[in-house]
Each structure stands twice: as C-alpha cells, then as structure tokens.
C-alpha cells in the first residue's frame, strides 16, 4: 500500500471498532481520528487489516465487511452474505489469497473474495459449539479453532483432518494465539486461565508447556509480540497483562480502573508499544518497556471491542 491516500495518511494504521456500530481509523502517533466508517446493524467482534494494508475486514452479527482504508469511503466495499449468526473472528492468509472466519454458527470458514465466482474457493469446518476463536498457523496450513465447549480443533486445511485439545473442562476458549515463529501456541478461557503449548518440536503434537492463572475474571484475548518474547492477555478485570515467554513471569500489568473490560490488544512491530481497546470507549497506547500510558484514542460512543494495528518497518 502506498499509504498516501487521503484516508489513512500514513502506512501506520490503527483501526478500532465496537458497540457503537462504527469503525474508526486513527493517526496512531497523534491520537487524532482520521475517519469513521459505518458498520450498520451490528457491533464489531473482530478486525483485521489485510496483508497489503489496503483493506480492513470487520466481522459482527450476520456480517463480514471489508473497508477500503486508502479511500475516504465510509461504507464497506465488500459485503459477505449468507451468515446467520455472530462472526467472532476474521483473518487473512499472508499472501492475501483467502480469508478465514469463525462464528457462532458452529463453523470456521475459508473465503476467497478476490476470485471470480466460478473459481472461488470455499471451505467449511463444522464443530459442535459456537466458535469463539480462529487462528491461522504461520505456515498457513492449519487453523486453530477454539469453541465454546472448551475444545481447540487443529484443522489441517489441505487434508481436512483435525486434532483436538481440551485444556480445561467446562471453560470456553476465548482466544488462541500462535507466535510468529510458530513455536508456541497460547489459549485463554473464560476462567481467566492461559494455557501454552510448544509447537513444531520433535513431537508431532502440541506439548503442554505452561499453565498461567492470568486473570481472576474472564480472559478475552491473547497475542504474541512479533519478536515472540512477550504474550499479552486481556481480561474483564480492567487489565492487560504482558508475560515474558522466557520464563512465563509477569512483565507488566497495564491497568486502568476506569477502562473496565479490555477487549483487544495489538503490539507494534518493534514489540515496544501495545495498543489496547476497552469498554470505556477508549483505545490506549502503552509503552511496554516503561509501563507508561502514551496515548489515548477517544471518539467512540460505546465500548471498543476490537482493534487492528498495522505498523511499518523503517
């Protein structure tokens, strides 16, 4: 993406969405809202910026939509139809060949928005409970599907085989993360627990690595930093916690008692900064090294439930 479009203004893009049916694009360094896009009829459950940086995909109740970040168009440019329930997560294959989603219709799906209809590739993976989390393995061949019943399904895309992991009984999987090197997988559940497995070792299956009692309440998201040294977990206990992946100790607790639930988080490319979005309708930028609050992003009328950040290497 050239990034000089009137809308985004720079190749660094912070996008937030939430209960107020809008998606906002921010100038990350200044905290100024550049654009507001309409997401009618639904809250925003998940946001993801496409690998080219041109588009942002948003998923919500009965809707998956794509917005052009480079233009000033407040309306979506692509609308995915045929969904009856909430879509909880959306993501892209790294070459932008296809898109994947997971939702409360008990499925994970592969979409191919670019091709002509007759060449369109679709794939569906059915589970026995609403899907809360989907995460694509960095090797692009596997999708981890976490559901309400607490099962993680490792869906192999080329063979359609799947393997199951059940970290904790009677706890729903809320989010799954895999580090960019593909060596660790983390999952958080509604009890506030975080489970970590090592992947891609000599053993063919994930090997349990660590169980962290991360939060006292509902955990909502987990994400690895780009350098794989940190894992952030966010929760309904008003905090986001950053854990060292070397010894799984707590590096930083990013707490603000007014922010209520912390719904989503994203690291900068140098793993120094972390964005969080929370129920008080603010997004925040934290300096993870110093533990300080650097910026606040105010403009949403209601809770921010999803955010996506795209950084640029210099």
């Amino acid at each position, binding site marked *: 993406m050239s990034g000089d479009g009137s809308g985004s203004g720079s190749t660094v893009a912070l996008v937030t969405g939430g209960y107020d049916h809008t998606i906002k694009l921010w100038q990350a360094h200044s905290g100024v809202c550049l654009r507001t896009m309409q997401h009618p009829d639904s809250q925003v459950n998940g946001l993801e910026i496409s690998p080219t940086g041109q588009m942002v995909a948003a998923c919500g109740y009965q809707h998956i939509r794509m917005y052009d970040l480079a233009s000033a168009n407040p309306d979506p440019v692509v609308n*995915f139809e045929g969904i009856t329930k909430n879509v909880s997560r959306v993501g892209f294959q790294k070459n932008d060949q296809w898109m994947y989603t997971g939702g409360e219709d008990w499925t994970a799906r592969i979409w191919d928005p670019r091709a002509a209809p007759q060449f369109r*590739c679709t794939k569906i993976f059915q589970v026995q409970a609403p899907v809360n989390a989907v995460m694509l393995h960095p090797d692009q061949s596997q999708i981890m599907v976490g559901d309400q019943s607490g099962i993680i399904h490792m869906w192999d895309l080329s063979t359609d085989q799947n393997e199951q992991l059940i970290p904790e009984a009677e706890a729903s999987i809320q989010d799954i993360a895999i580090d960019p090197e593909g060596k660790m997988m983390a999952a958080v559940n509604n009890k506030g627990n975080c489970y970590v497995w090592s992947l891609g070792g000599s053993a063919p299956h994930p090997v349990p690595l660590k169980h962290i009692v991360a939060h006292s309440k509902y955990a909502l998201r987990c994400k690895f930093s780009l350098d794989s040294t940190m894992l952030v977990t966010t929760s309904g206990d008003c905090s986001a916690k950053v854990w060292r992946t070397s010894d799984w100790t707590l590096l930083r607790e990013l707490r603000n008692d007014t922010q209520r639930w912390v719904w989503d988080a994203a690291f900068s490319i140098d793993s120094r*900064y972390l964005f969080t979005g929370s129920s008080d309708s603010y997004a925040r930028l934290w300096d993870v090294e110093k533990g300080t609050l650097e910026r606040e992003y105010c403009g949403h009328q209601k809770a921010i439930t999803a955010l996506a950040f795209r950084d640029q290497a210099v």
Partner: protein
Amino acid sequence: MATYDNKIWLLKNIRDAFIATDDTGLCEIVMAGEDFSKVFQNKAIEEKKRIREGRLMQPGPSKHKDGMGDISEEEIGKEIVTQFDPYPDMDDSEDDDPLCGSYVRYEDLGGYRPRSNTAQWLDKKEQALKKAAKIKVIKWEDSSLTADQLNEMFSKFEVKKPEKQKSLLAEQLQNCPNLPYRQYLEYAKFDGTAQLGLPTKSFKIFMTMLPEKHQAYPLVVCVIASAKIKDLIGFTCYKYSIEHPDISLESVHDYGLCIAEDDGEVDWAFPCLDANEPCSKFGFTCLGLVELKSKSAMAQPPSSIPEDGMSGAFHVFSKVTDSGQSHQNPSRHNTGGSSTSEAVLSALKALNEGGDADTGKMQSHILATEAPQYKAYKVYLQRKVRSNTCVQLGISLYRIEIEPLVTNKHAFWSRSKYFLHSIDSVAWCQILETRGTRTTFRIVYSPNHNAVYHERNNAGNSTMFHQNAIFKLHDFECDHDMAKEIVEKVNTILDLRNSPCRREYKTAKEKKLQTRRSFHTKHLS
C-alpha cells in the same frame, strides 16, 4: 377547531411555542414557575371543591329544582363547572387530559415543511440502493475447485524467524511529543461528523477570545445533538488545538458560548448559553467563544480611568510637542520607541491595578495602542438653547476637533461652530449619564491652554471654574458603546500626555471636592 375552546390547552400551547421558538432560552427562564395552565387547573379543582361543599350543605329541594334527582356525590362534582375549567362538557379521562399533549413539536420547527413519510421512505430506499450498488457482494457458495487447485491454495509455507525491525510508529511518536489537544481529548467523542443514526448539529464558532488575526474565519464544528454546551466548548477547543497546535487555549471552564452574528460580532447583551443545556435546544448556528472573565467585564458599566497613580510614568510624553506633525497620522511618532512601549506597559499596569482588574489585558493593550490614532465619530453636540446638532468629533493624539455636519446652510440659527482644541488644553472626559439608548458624555477644556489654536466662538459653553484657568465644556450625546469608546480613547490619550492643564483641573477638582462635596458627587462622580 373545537379544541381551541380549551383555555388551558391554548395557554399551554402558547407557553410551549414561546419556549420552543425562543432560541435564547430566556423565555423559559422568565416563565419558569408560572405555568398558568397548571395554575388554572389547580384553581378549578379548588373552586369545584368549594362549590361542591356549598351544594352539599344546601337541603334537598334545590337539587330537585335542578332536575337532577338522586345523584351521587361524584356526579355533583362532575356537573360543577367553574370559570377555571378547561373543558366544560368533558370528562377527565387520561386521553383527553389537556395538559398531556401539546400541539407544538420541537422537531417540527426546523423551518422546512416536513415531508411525507412515504417520500422519506422512498428517498431512503433510493439512497440505500445507490449505496448497495457500490458494494461488492460475496455469497457463500460451495467450492467447485479440484483437489490440485485446493492443494495449491493451502500449501505449506516455511516459517521464518521474523527479523528485528524498527517501528515507524515509534519514530512518529518520538517526533510528536507535544499534544496540546490532549487536555480536551475527552470531548473528542462528541464529534458528530461521522455518526450513524445519531442526530448531529453544526455550528460556526468564532474564537473571539483570541487575538484578532486568528478570528478571520469561524471554526465549523459538528457535534452530536445530545452534547451539552460545555461539551461543545470542549470539542471546539479540541478541534481548534488540533488545527492550530501553536496557539494555546485555556481550560474549557474559562470559556463560554455567546450568540454571535454571521460576521462574528458577539452579542454581549445576552448571557452566555447555559453550559449544562444540550446544544440541540438552541437554534443558533453562529456562536462566539468568549472568555468568561472578559464577558463579565463587558457586562459591567464602564469605569472611568483612575485619576491618580498615573503621573510620573509618562513624563516622556509631556516633552513631546505637536509642531510640524502631520494631522493624519500622528501616531507614527509615538510607536516603536522602547521608552514608549515601556510607558505603555506601565500605563497598562496602572490601568489594571487601579480600576477594573478584570478587564482583559488584551483589551487594554488594544486600547492603549489604538488610542493615539486619529478617529472620527458622528455624535450630537448638546446645546443649551437650540436643538442638538450633529457633529463630527475627531480625536487624535494632538487635537480634538468638532466639525458641524450642516445639512441646511441657509438656516443660520441651527448652524454650529467649528472647534479645534489642542489635546493639551483638554482636561477631562467622562460619561455623564445614560438615558435609554443615548449616553451623554462631557469633554472639559481650558481656552487658556489653547494658545496655538484660535477659538472662534465660546458661546453656548458654560464656565465652570474661575481660578487660575478657565474651564469650559462640551456635552455630547451618542449611543452607549460609542460614548464608552470615545471616553476611553480620550482618557487614554489624556493620561499619556498628562498635560499641565489636566493636572491643574485635577487639583482644582480636588479642592472643589473638599469644599463643595455635594456639587461634585452630583456632577463628577
């Protein structure tokens, strides 16, 4: 039109109409607690009670006379009609409660004829269709790709360890350490420019509290309609500080919003809009952001320049002579010098300390720097025997000039004389009184000190003092604002010059004050 028989309903509607259409909100304040429709209703209830009690006291025959027979107590009550009743013939049911519904609807007063629901619906439909045409729709369909194609699609990538990268965000954050708008951040959420389904309201805000060069264009802000005036102030500060990060603004609590004209002229006669009212309540689109401090200062009656504490600071000016200086632009000689600006500064200081300390510094600064410049005003010269004549009063650092604006040259009796006073012969200037829209002010001068200027006529001017100097006066009449401006201007110049004539007059006045206090309190205080 039967409904208009209802007195209470009408009263209620007139009241509502006043409140709804009065954008200043003053009607509501004035009428608060005086809802006559309610008063009438209460009176009706009382009256009914009284009459009913009176009837029940009377013996039976009176009832029979009315042909009512055996009726219950309630029926009696129902039948009683008082002069305060809204609907003589109607039962009091919930639906027909005259107070429950009012004809006036706030949203209907936009000035446009409301369009029919169908037309609006059709419009919406058309817009939705137009929008939809631009959106690419992807339906969920089962794939028809071959296994090979699928394999290609989902081939495995080799995972490389990501390189350590420098972040553009980190760089941008470093280059952008100061965010003046951050203090107003909480107001950012009132931005109405991109809201879905929320009513919004746009305003032109003139930043009248800023120096004049920043006031040329109003700031157009759009907020959600439910935002309160204080939120609008906060959002205005937020937006302005984003666009002009170099200009620092005060706390939002120091500002108020006043009604303004299209050209940014603030109407000082009205109070600031109530900060806790939603902005949707007000119909104005042009507002002026004012400092609350200067607003309260503006609302006060003009205070005269303090009399003492001024001498000594301006000795530099008493040396200045006015010979050979151009009449048009005398101010040139008195600007730029460091001693001058020092004197102006100390004058400002004295001004601020002595009298109205609340007057904004900027205001007095403008006053002090502009005062020496020549300016002409059209005022009326008051005369004792004849009617007032329209004159042009020219004031500069060196002279005061009174030039009659004669309309009828043949009417010699109405002709006024031309006066030219050296500023050093002018001793005093003050506002005398305000009557209605007219204000009279007085300029006292001494012909003795007017050596260089020939006074052609002294008729019509009364002599005030008979000591060393003779003091005479002119009384003028004009509107209040202009009088205030003139008096301020003349006094600033007089204070700058501090001529012997002025000092003499002050001394004489003090003496008078001691001996004839009553005269002075009436005349000069």
